[in-house]
């Protein structure tokens, strides 16, 4: 049988990816340019017995999301810049209480209300450092509609597997452009569910590390009763200020992601092997970059593209390796150098990083990137 094909927007693909992953709850608050995610979920969730709720603001949406997930279902919210700022305190709650959930954040121009309909890639640091305190961060940055679908499924898998909030952040261009998408058959993409407890309720502890760094999570209302708090906690979920426990728990929370980077990181390398110049680009910008790399190759310049698909954790080690063989990096981005800063942070000064930074609501075009490639000597 032929596979189901559709012509979808990135935002619609995010919603369908969530449904494929088994999402049963959506809590959100409307904001351009992410609203289509909520709209599709409001149509589709009740059809499968799932629940959709439009909350009073993004803080409420994030809170309901965590409550819903704790009640045992996969949960999604969608937002954009200002909404992401509002969600931050509770994203931290999700990290410390270890509640899986997925946040779609469509990147628009900021700060503040900024440019609601303009594309941007300037929320990328907010995805890692937006909430206060040390915490794990996973952030995925798809570049096509098909990839939005697939990466949303992966976002749920990572959230459930590592018991932590995961962000997927298409820029406005990826979120709003329409492309052909081939729906994977059920079973074609891996779908991971959180590990349920294997012990009886009387023995259950929500942060029992004898099961490893990611303890099984029971659901409220499933026969297990336990305590959840945003305070530093012990294995039984109750608050503590005992220095050695707090230290160990904080380290474990971060280690869940750090020690599993190989599983979480994902990137694409295009024409990298013999490259003298490597363009590091993600999201819609990587599409301009690929075009520019092809043009450069035609002009006899050995250019390549390194495209992070997981932005956090960032593929530092691989970029460091590449940096030993190249003459320079180009960082085209819709931000004033956030990604360039990240690149510089991992290549130990081995090569210069040339930036093309646009925050005028326009995409970085291939011509600009090609010109920059030619500047590398």
């Amino acid at each position, binding site marked *: 049988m032929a596979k189901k094909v559709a012509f979808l927007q990135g935002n619609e693909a995010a919603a369908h990816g969530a449904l494929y992953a088994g999402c049963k*709850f959506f809590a959100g608050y409307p904001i351009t340019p992410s609203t289509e995610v909520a709209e599709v979920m409001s149509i589709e969730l009740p059809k499968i*017995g799932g629940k959709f709720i439009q909350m009073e603001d993004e803080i409420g949406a994030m809170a309901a*999301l965590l409550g819903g997930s704790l009640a045992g279902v996969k949960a999604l919210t969608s937002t954009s810049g200002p909404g992401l700022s509002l969600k931050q*305190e509770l994203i931290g709650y999700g990290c410390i209480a270890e509640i899986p959930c997925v946040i779609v954040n469509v990147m628009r121009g900021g700060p503040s209300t900024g440019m609601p309909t303009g594309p941007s890639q300037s929320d990328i640091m907010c995805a890692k450092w937006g909430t206060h305190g040390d915490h794990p961060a996973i952030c995925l940055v798809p570049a096509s509609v098909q990839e939005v679908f697939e990466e949303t499924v992966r976002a749920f898998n990572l959230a459930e597997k590592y018991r932590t909030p995961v962000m997927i952040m298409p820029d406005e261009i990826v979120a709003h452009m329409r492309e052909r998408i081939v729906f994977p058959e059920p079973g074609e993409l891996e779908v991971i569910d959180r590990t349920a407890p294997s012990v009886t309720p009387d023995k259950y502890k929500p942060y029992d590390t004898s099961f490893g760094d990611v303890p099984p999570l029971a659901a*409220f*209302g499933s026969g*297990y009763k*336990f*305590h959840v*708090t945003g305070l530093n906690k012990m294995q039984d979920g109750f608050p503590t200020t005992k220095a050695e426990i707090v230290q160990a728990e904080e380290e474990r929370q971060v280690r869940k992601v750090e020690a599993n980077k190989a599983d979480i990181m994902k990137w694409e390398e295009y024409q990298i092997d013999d490259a003298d110049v490597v363009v590091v680009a993600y999201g819609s910008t990587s599409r301009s970059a690929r075009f520019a790399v092809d043009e450069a190759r035609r002009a006899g310049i050995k250019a390549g593209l390194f495209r992070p698909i997981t932005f956090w954790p960032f593929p530092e080690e691989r970029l460091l390796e590449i940096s030993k063989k190249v003459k320079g990096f180009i960082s085209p981005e819709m931000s004033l150098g956030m990604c360039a800063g990240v690149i510089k942070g991992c290549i130990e000064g081995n090569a210069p990083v040339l930036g093309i930074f646009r925050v005028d609501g326009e995409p970085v075009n291939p011509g600009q990137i090609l010109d920059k490639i030619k500047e590398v000597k």
Partner: protein
Amino acid sequence: MAYDYEKYIRPGKLPHIWCPGCGHGIVMKGLIRAIDTCGLKKEETAIVSGIGCASRLPGYLDFCTLHTAHGRAAAFATGVKMVRPEMNVILVGGDGDGTAIGGNHFIHACRRNIDMTYIIMNNKIYGMTGGQFSPATPTGDKASTTPYGNPDPAFDIAKLAIGAGATFVARGTAFHANQIDKLIAEAIQHKGFSVVEILDDCPTTYGRRNKFKSVIEMMNYLKESTVPVKAAEKMSPEQLKGKVLTGVLYKEDKPEYTEEYAKVIARAQAAK
């Protein structure tokens, strides 16, 4: 008291953090008795709170307990209730938590009429952070941040709940301890969003700044300043001046939110 409170208290979690004379413990005992009266099962009941002295309550009780962030109890609880409408969901917290930072979630939970019970312990102050004024602090009172007297007018929390659409609203006091369980039990049994405001006391950060010489004086104040609604019916406006009404203040039958959403599901599936 024939009640076996221990049955509902988590082993090893007492003593609690509350100061001697704090009203929050009286409310907790009332809540336990109400839960017992209603026969709620521990595994099927979620007790959700925000942040504050009052919000520490869930940790002591042996249920599914969720100590959220400051002001967010109603929103977290809404997520739990949406996903598991069959669960009993009880929210507890202070006046600051519920009506300042959490005010938006509070009024919207009232408006949706989602079947949960919210117990607000109104001690008219931010106890946990050392006695700053809250939206329930009376005008003119002293708090650590109103050293010259509070310029703000105060919310009438029960009226706020009624205005926002809650379908059961009651008020009790920590002095009238034996009434608390009855009000809470009635609220739990009501289908829809029910609010029980319990006027209680914070001797540590409010009493000492506002000329209450002892906890007994604060308790006497709760007694003297309140009148049961039934008794008020027979009182003249002069007699009622400065008095706060207690008892069941409002009750109405209205469509409940999770039941309405079940209809949304039915409509979506019929249209499929």
